[in-house]
């Protein structure tokens, strides 16, 4: 008989921290990562030696980036491991930090995501392809945008409204790479990228770091951590792509099955969710995923968007951080930063971005391959 995370002993997020996501710079990844870790330790009001295990999420830094960074916190000898799972690297690191604490192997674990914008290198499979080298992620999603628009009679303007909302949220987030409100005209008038996608509808891959510290109730008590600011992880699910009906959007199908398992694990329904941080690397994805998660029937996402139901203060705030489009997507940190945003919101500490009364949040990432991770956090 296997068990899910929520059947094991409770695990709580007790510390969160970032190095702001930003355009590529000369700052070494070590400085980015240490800033986020020290911020998370300060937020939890604990010292580094309390951390019993570390998961380092990085997709573009090459081999063994963790120790050269962590040693500057004081080498405690605690175990560390590296997680590479494409865009979902950070979410995966968080899941395994939670599992380690929930299992009782550790009382306190750290998930740190850090990355620089280095070239993506993928191994050859030995199987040929017609023109996959011509289909980068923004073109994959430009094709899905065209399909969504035709199937659901949505215009390019409708879909671009996702970016207007997320830039508005990002403008209030000091950790966001893009902190500027944008009008619909600005979004549509920007540089054309692929299909109807313009540059302000695409994530700006940059650099940065995000850190989250998780702890058991024993750890919280032993270290005198403020239990009132601890936020419990009530579901953790990871999945990978299966064979779907020909032509089915695999990102959305995979999201649906992963989210369904997470909702069942936390024993909540889509209507219970107050905030969602999801993988909006490209505008159309937000519509796909809110429909896959079950906020509304397929094809109704634009209506929710136009009604303001997805705004901060609306029915369910989607990407209050600004999402991948505005907060940014430095790869390794992204999934961990989502958890930090949800924790900040559930604590009521999100300031100008606060979604009032938030009690339940869901974090979603997909990664090429494809993999999907969903976490639910509850106050």
């Amino acid at each position, binding site marked *: 008989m296997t068990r899910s995370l929520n059947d094991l002993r409770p695990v709580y997020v007790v510390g969160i921290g970032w190095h702001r996501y930003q355009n590529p710079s000369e700052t070494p990844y070590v400085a980015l990562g240490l800033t986020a870790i020290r911020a998370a330790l300060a937020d939890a009001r604990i010292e580094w030696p309390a951390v019993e295990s570390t998961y380092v999420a990085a997709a573009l830094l090459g081999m063994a980036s963790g120790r050269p960074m962590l040693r500057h916190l004081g080498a405690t000898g605690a175990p560390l491991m590296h997680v590479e799972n494409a865009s979902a690297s950070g979410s995966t690191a968080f899941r395994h930090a939670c599992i380690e604490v929930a299992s009782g192997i550790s009382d306190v674990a750290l998930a740190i995501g850090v990355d620089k914008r280095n070239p993506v290198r993928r191994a050859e499979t*030995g*199987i*040929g*392809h*017609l*023109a*996959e*080298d*011509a*289909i*980068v992620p*923004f*073109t994959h999603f*430009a*094709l*899905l*945008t*065209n*399909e969504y628009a*035709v199937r659901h009679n949505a215009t390019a303007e409708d879909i671009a409204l996702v970016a207007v909302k997320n830039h508005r949220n990002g403008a209030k987030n000091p950790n966001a790479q893009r902190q500027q409100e944008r009008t619909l005209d600005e979004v549509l008038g920007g*540089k*054309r*990228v*692929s*299909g109807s996608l313009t540059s302000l509808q695409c994530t700006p891959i940059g650099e940065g770091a995000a850190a989250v510290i998780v702890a058991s109730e024993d750890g919280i008590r032993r270290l005198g951590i403020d239990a009132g600011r601890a936020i419990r992880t009530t579901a953790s699910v990871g999945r990978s792509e299966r*064979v779907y009906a*020909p*032509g089915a959007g695999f990102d959305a199908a995979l999201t649906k099955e992963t989210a369904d398992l997470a909702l069942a694990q936390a024993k909540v329904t889509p209507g219970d969710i107050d905030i969602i941080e999801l993988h909006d690397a490209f505008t159309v994805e937000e519509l796909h995923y809110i429909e896959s998660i079950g906020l509304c029937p397929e094809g109704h996402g634009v209506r929710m968007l136009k009604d303001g139901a997805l705004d901060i203060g609306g029915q369910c705030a989607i990407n209050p951080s600004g999402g991948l489009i505005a907060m940014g997507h430095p790869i390794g940190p992204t999934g961990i930063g989502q958890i930090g945003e949800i924790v900040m919101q559930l604590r009521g500490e999100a300031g100008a971005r606060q979604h009032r009364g938030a009690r339940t949040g869901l974090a979603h990432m997909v990664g090429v391959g494809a993999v999907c991770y969903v976490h639910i956090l509850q106050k």
Partner: protein
Amino acid sequence: MQPSKLLKPELYSAGSGDGDGATARLKGGRCRCGYVFFPMQTYGCERCGSHGDPLTPYELSTNGTLLAEATVHLHADKNRPAPFTIVKVALDDGPVIRTLLADDSARVAPGQRVTGRLVPTTQSESGETVLDHRFSAAS
């Protein structure tokens, strides 16, 4: 007629009796479980995991229905200068594939019928015309 060669002969062939601009056939595979895939490979079936003898070559017609198109305006790889158009096509024989639209194709939209052809792209060092697979609006 100029001598020609295929850019990726492991993926497609010319329909019998055709020359330049000919209808293409795709070199797909079929598993004993019924799953049809492209391109042919022997590593194993994505649906059932069978490998070896259960996987056999299965030639696919390039006739299909367009699911989506996107004209790419920016592309970092200099070997693929933008603009170009990518199409997602549901082949009548089952698999959904994505590749380039021929430069000389009429404009296409979802729901439209398309067909694959072998079109001249570059010259090889030995002077042969190099043919590659592209989709076009079905005539």
